[in-house]
């Protein structure tokens, strides 16, 4: 089984700092996302799935419609293999309502209608749900199984400067990667972009994302779009 764990905003510096050995796997490094004008979630993940830079096309939809952008299976690396599953993947099987609600809560926080604890709670609930689903699906057999976790990004936006909270989240993600690695022949952990702190908040790093594999890849500073070919080749 080829397993892909997509972790939004996973930051290499924290993976190293918190010693997340399962997230690091055997080989890890940073992806180069400098070619994108802005490190937008939908743009990066869709480009990852399609294997080509879709920024222009997606940005043209505008900030509201962008979130509903959806690729056809044939346009992604899921096309080739027979049995595939993608849990909550942006640009493909994204849970529109959940993430729209999350964006609304960000607005509510900045308008001082809710506290950080109130903001965090539903994010954690969604995380536990995806985690449970993923661990269940690991028992089955797919050619490609991909799960998407947005917890590091969404919680990070308001709490990246809170080292303890971030460590607890990263350690938990590391555990998930550990469980998955037992079922994977080939595994890829990938993030769209990294994160940098602005006081207690977290902003998208526009230069790099994170990648790691348990098998060797030929590229040194891969672009996020380079992985589609690698996945197709290995699944």
């Amino acid at each position, binding site marked *: 089984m080829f397993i892909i764990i997509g972790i939004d905003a996973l930051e290499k510096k924290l993976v190293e700092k918190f010693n997340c050995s399962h997230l690091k796997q055997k080989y890890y490094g940073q992806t180069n996302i400098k070619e994108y004008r802005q*490190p937008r979630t939908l743009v990066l993940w869709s480009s990852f799935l399609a294997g080509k830079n879709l920024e222009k096309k997606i940005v043209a939809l505008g900030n509201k419609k962008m979130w509903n952008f959806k690729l056809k299976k044939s346009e992604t690396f899921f096309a080739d293999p027979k049995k595939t599953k993608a849990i909550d993947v942006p640009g493909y099987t994204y849970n529109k309502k959940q993430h729209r609600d999350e964006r609304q809560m960000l607005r509510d926080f900045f308008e001082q209608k809710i506290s950080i604890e109130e903001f965090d709670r539903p994010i954690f609930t969604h995380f536990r749900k995806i985690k449970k689903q993923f661990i269940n699906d690991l028992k089955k057999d797919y050619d490609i199984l991909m799960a998407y976790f947005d917890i590091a990004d969404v919680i990070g936006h308001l709490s990246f400067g809170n080292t303890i909270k971030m460590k607890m989240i990263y350690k938990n993600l590391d555990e998930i990667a550990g469980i998955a690695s037992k079922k994977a022949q080939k595994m890829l952990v990938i993030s769209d972009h990294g994160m940098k702190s602005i006081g207690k908040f977290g902003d998208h790093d526009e230069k790099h994302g994170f990648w790691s594999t348990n098998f060797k890849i030929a590229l040194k500073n891969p672009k996020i779009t380079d992985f589609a070919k690698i996945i197709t080749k290995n699944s």
Partner: protein
Amino acid sequence: MDHLDELESKSIYIIREAYNQFKNIAALWSIGKDSTTLVWLCRKAFLGKVPFPVMHIDTTYKFKEIYKFREKYAKVWGLKLIVGKNEKAAKAGMGPDKGKFACCNSMKTEALKQTIDKYKISALLLGIRRDEHGIRAKERYFSPRNRQFKWNYKDQPPEMWDQYRSKQSGEQHTRIHPLLHWTEKDIWYYVLREKIPVVPLYFAKKGKRYRSIGCETCCNPIPSNAKTVKEIVKELEITKIAERSGRAQDKEQAYMMQKLRTLGYM
């Protein structure tokens, strides 16, 4: 010797070591309680007259009480006062409305850099304490900074047995922290004991007072009824809330809101 005497003696020792080692030294005075205590300790170390300049970085947004206090005590204590200001940015209208992050960077950090360069300062005495903030806990008494004010805290020389020294290449300045081992409580007890004057903003007016002071535009008071140093000390004994919770962290908030809009989140 009681606890405060020990703290005082060590600080004086460090100040005297710094003066012995560095040619062009200055003390940074933000007019707050910590740096005023530092200046007080300098007066003690040099038996009355502080032989080097005392520097105030004026962001132009300080409370008027701060300016008043500064002028009075610079005179009474016979200090060689230097006021550093980022004149260029001030004229261009830099302020917290341009983004608090940018304002602090320009009016505080840049102004400090310019002043250090202008007066060729090779070492600065600062009033920071280890208990102020997590990251401060890793500070050293003598701490080198490079040109960009970056601090390499992964590779710090050990400070054993009261031996302090910092490598200085042409480009660097060294920061010295004689108050590192003091806590917020220690400072207030010392202020009480020595009768050190502090800016009246620390005392409650209409149920509010400032726990830490900076620029008027970005400082938020906390609820309190402590009107004297004695009352502040009493209040401190029972509170557990960390000191900097009063300071405005919303310069970063403004930046984030703008960024999140750009990324399509809001």
